[in-house]
């Protein structure tokens, strides 16, 4: 491209030039574009070849675009948003009360609104193993019962045919006694695991080796792999542990290795032994059940594996239609397999309609909270009308002012979210453990903040800033500048609290008073020292589990009759030994223990009580040994106690005798004579196979009310069914002891261990077990109380802001009225009429909501008895009314104290 002999200036390529014109913006854009062309022309004049000159032009242009854009961004941050953010921070510091309330509310509300998502992230995340997203669970799902099934040994061997998996493993949980100096040491969570599992999980030992295929052979020496925590707790980190013999269950095992503390697969396990069960030893469908999982082969997707699992299931259905026709093969995320969840992947869970509805409700509540923060900001913005008007007059566009007010709200929301997230991170671990109660969290669930939750919280904070910042800003900038400038000098503004903010204040009072009622009920429940019919501080509750077969014994089909007899013998023996113990006052055996939650069902009476519909009552159903009442010294008050004859017959025989408690007689039978009455269960329920829905049961006796449904004494009716030793395994023992129950806890385990070393026994004081059982509800209630309290504080502050605003707006009017002789009542009516109307409406509707919530509440510790509800609502109304009154009092008093001369001079 030589210089044009005609004298025309050489031009760079058109497309590049067009791009440069489009991309370079800003005050010197035209000079940059022009000089880029001139540089190109000079290069050509200097004799540079066309392609070289074009390359130089392209580089120059690109570098210029980059410089112009970075300069524009820097300017925007330092002079635009940055300036607004600094102004925002200054405004926050100048109004500490409003700032504190808004920070508190948004700081609690925004992180709390993400609790569900956080829970899903924590519980259903990936396993912490190399390439954890490639490890998947394989299982059958029963389409008839809508529930996932564990795989049998035969299923596991068939799953091995899947070519989509490069390796496959199986694991099965149980608990076992492990050698300890103290015979009362609690049992350990153990797992039978295939050697291949360690390959699937790519797990490496801390000491020694993992299990290998040789360990799984029948007749191979008994070996065990220990967890680091167990190695520390029971073996004092003995460096020579590998090769040592340790008693596990009934037999001695050689330790082959120690796994690091962060490996607790599948849930929170500390001991692993080889999985030796083989399909050949069991009839089809029988044998132990296990979780089966595998690592996807390279290049295979989850969808490919699902297709293969489905076709394998179809083949099995052709072989055995009865068992497989209603089953479907599933490939699922590992947490979903191990937690036996109906869902398959986290995305299914997050789009589950119930989950979405719950999340939307939470966001709706958050929206109300944001709206109220908006009311506060509106009051603050109103006070700045003059400033806004002056800025407008000096040339600031409406958009510029909107941006400033939005950025101020954004600063507030971001600061609140940041503080809230920090607090949540510090507390979430404790909170999750409290909510999970005694159920140990799976080892992969680390309740720290996840990137998704942080990103969502920041996004929600930005949305909150739009709701709380832009709406008031639109209102503040709507009016004519002139009008605001004129009013500016008189401290009065055109900004007002419209119907929107009134609705917000009222709705927030309604919601917060409603939830406050629940909170008040919970606090009353905690303070109330109710008569439970017994003293939990005198009891120990122990659970005895006799392992189906010793996992290390040669696997074989279990002789169920002999095994049932053995279980019965051990259970009976423990009952006898406990009752002989000098520290024991009384002992009872059963599925349930007093004071602990029990399933409930609706019953149908053969002869219905007049005018009484028992459906809807939470009637506790308990199963106890025939000696339960005698053993715990709870004699029947009518009829007779259970006898051995009530449970006669081979295993599986239906026993029709039942004993009810006095509350059942009072509430369900309407005080009639219970003995001889017959009832059956509603055809709905908890899938309790032992109690047929079509069968009639006969009441043979009545006992005193004894620790049933302690969470709600209004619903403590109960039915007891008899069971024979061996019917149920594991089983609970309720032991009344002399002295401190804590002291008897290891004794219980010692006695159990002396009867059968293989049987595992766990024991705790009943009072602490009860507290743990109800702790989840208590924690949820406290959380709700905290949110309701924050919401209530916010609505009270909203009232306060509105009233203060009214007084400052109407100072002149109040002055004139006072000068013309208006009395105090007129002034109060002028100032507080609207606030009183809002507070009154909110309180009335809120109490109504509280009534509904209390009636439908299923939280333990919240009484649903009519008298209790009335008292709770009265207390709530008093507390809420008092706070509203306080919020209104100060601005109203300020209005009353206005001196006419001062008011007129000021205005």
């Amino acid at each position: 491209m030589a210089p044009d002999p005609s004298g025309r200036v050489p031009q760079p390529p058109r497309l590049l030039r067009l791009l440069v014109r489009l991309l370079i913006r800003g005050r010197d854009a035209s000079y940059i574009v022009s000089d880029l062309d001139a540089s190109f022309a000079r290069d050509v004049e200097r004799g540079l070849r066309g392609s070289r000159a074009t390359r130089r032009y392209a580089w120059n242009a690109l570098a210029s675009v980059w410089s112009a854009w970075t300069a524009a961004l820097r300017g925007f941050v330092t002079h635009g948003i940055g300036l607004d953010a600094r102004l925002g921070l200054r405004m926050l510091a100048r109004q500490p009360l409003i700032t504190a309330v808004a920070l508190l509310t948004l700081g609690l509300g925004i992180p709390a609104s993400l609790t569900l998502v956080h829970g899903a992230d924590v519980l259903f995340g990936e396993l912490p193993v190399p390439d954890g997203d490639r490890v998947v669970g394989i299982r059958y799902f029963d389409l008839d019962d809508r529930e996932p099934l564990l795989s049998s040994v035969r299923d596991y061997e068939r799953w091995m045919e899947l070519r989509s998996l490069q390796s496959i493993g199986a694991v099965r949980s149980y608990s076992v006694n492990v050698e300890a100096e103290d015979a009362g040491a609690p049992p350990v969570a153990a797992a039978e695991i295939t050697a291949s599992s360690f390959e699937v999980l790519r797990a490496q030992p801390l000491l020694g080796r993992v299990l290998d295929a040789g360990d799984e052979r029948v007749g191979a020496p008994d070996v065990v792999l220990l967890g680091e925590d167990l190695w520390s707790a029971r073996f004092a980190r003995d460096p020579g542990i590998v090769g040592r013999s340790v008693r596990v269950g009934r037999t001695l095992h050689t330790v082959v290795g120690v796994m690091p503390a962060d490996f607790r697969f599948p849930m929170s396990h500390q001991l692993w032994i080889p999985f030796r069960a083989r399909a050949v030893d069991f009839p089809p469908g029988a044998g132990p059940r296990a979780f089966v999982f595998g690592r996807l082969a390279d290049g295979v997707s989850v969808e490919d594996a699902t297709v293969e699992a489905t076709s394998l299931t179809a083949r099995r259905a052709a072989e055995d239609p009865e068992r497989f026709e209603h089953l479907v093969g599933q490939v699922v995320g590992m947490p979903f397999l191990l937690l036996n969840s109906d869902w398959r992947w986290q995305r299914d869970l997050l789009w589950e309609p119930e989950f979405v509805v719950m999340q939307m409700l939470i966001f709706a509540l958050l929206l109300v909270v944001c709206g109220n923060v908006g009311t506060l900001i509106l009051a603050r913005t109103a006070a700045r009308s003059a400033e806004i008007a002056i800025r407008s007059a000096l040339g600031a566009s409406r958009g510029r002012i909107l941006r400033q007010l939005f950025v101020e709200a954004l600063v507030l929301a971001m600061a609140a979210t940041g503080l809230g997230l920090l607090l949540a991170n510090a507390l979430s671990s404790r909170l999750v453990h409290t909510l999970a109660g005694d159920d140990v969290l799976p080892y992969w669930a680390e309740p720290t903040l996840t990137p998704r939750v942080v990103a969502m919280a920041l996004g929600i904070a930005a949305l909150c800033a739009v709701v709380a910042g832009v709406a008031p800003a639109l209102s503040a900038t709507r009016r004519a500048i002139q009008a605001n400038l004129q009013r500016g000098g008189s401290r009065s503004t055109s900004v007002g609290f419209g119907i929107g903010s009134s609705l917000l204040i009222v709705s927030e009072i309604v919601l917060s008073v409603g939830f406050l009622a629940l909170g008040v009920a919970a606090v009353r429940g905690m303070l109330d020292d109710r008569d439970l019919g017994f003293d939990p501080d005198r009891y120990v509750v122990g659970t005895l589990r006799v392992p189906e077969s010793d996992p290390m014994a040669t696997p074989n089909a279990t002789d169920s009759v002999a095994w049932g007899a053995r279980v019965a013998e051990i259970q009976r023996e423990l009952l006898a030994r406990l009752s002989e113990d000098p520290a024991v006052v009384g002992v009872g055996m059963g599925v349930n223990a007093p004071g602990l939650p029990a399933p409930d069902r609706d019953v149908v009476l053969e002869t219905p009580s007049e005018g009484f519909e028992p459906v809807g009552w939470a009637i506790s159903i308990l199963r106890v040994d025939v000696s339960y009442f005698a053993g715990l010294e709870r004699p029947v008050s009518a009829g007779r106690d259970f006898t051995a004859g009530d449970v006669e017959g081979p295993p599986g025989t239906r026993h029709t005798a039942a004993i009810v408690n006095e509350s059942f007689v009072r509430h369900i039978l309407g005080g009639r004579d219970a003995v001889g009455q017959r009832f059956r269960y509603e055809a709905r329920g908890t899938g309790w196979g032992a109690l047929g829905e079509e069968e009639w049961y006969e009441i043979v006796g009545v006992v005193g009310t004894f620790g049933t449904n302690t969470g709600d004494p209004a619903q403590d009716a109960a039915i007891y069914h008899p069971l024979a030793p061996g019917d149920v395994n594991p089983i609970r023992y309720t032991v009344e002891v002399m002295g401190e129950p804590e002291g008897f806890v290891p004794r219980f385990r010692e006695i159990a261990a002396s009867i059968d070393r293989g049987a595992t026994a766990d024991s705790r004081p009943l009072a602490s077990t009860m507290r743990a059982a109800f702790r989840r509800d208590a924690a949820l209630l406290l959380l709700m109380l905290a949110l309701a309290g924050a919401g209530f504080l916010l609505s009270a502050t909203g009232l306060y802001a509105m009233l203060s605003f009214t007084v400052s707006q109407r100072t002149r009017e109040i002055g004139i009225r006072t000068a013309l002789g208006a009395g105090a009542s007129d002034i109060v009516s002028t100032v507080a009429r609207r606030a009183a109307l809002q507070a009154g409406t909110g309180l009335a509707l809120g109490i109504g909501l509280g009534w509904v919530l209390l009636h439908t509440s299923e939280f333990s510790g919240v009484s649903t008895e009519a008298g209790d509800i009335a008292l709770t609502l009265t207390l709530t109304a008093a507390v809420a009314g008092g706070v509203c009154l306080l919020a209104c009092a100060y601005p109203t008093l300020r209005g009353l104290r206005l001196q006419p001369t001062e008011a007129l001079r000021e205005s």
Partner: protein
Amino acid sequence: MNALGSFEQIILFAVLQLDGEAYGVSIRENIEERTGRTVSIGAIYTTLGRLEDRGLVRSRTEKPQGRTGRPRKYYRLSAEGARDLRESYATIKSMAGGLTSELDRLAES
């Protein structure tokens, strides 16, 4: 005194040397000739814009001459700009005093 970055110093020296004839293309060529460094027109204008905001340079625009002429924006050093440049240069000079041979030795070792 305003602290000056190294690129700002280079630009100000180029403006000083071009003595009233400093605009994008001439500054770019001046820097290329004297330092061997290729800089973009955009970087020159954004830096000059910043220096102008700080009062270190002043600008005047000239309308295009003739049909194919282009608009130009010429820059000149202000008194404040001259003071800041002098200070910056003096600082570097005094810090470098007696060290150049050592610097050469180290750089070439």
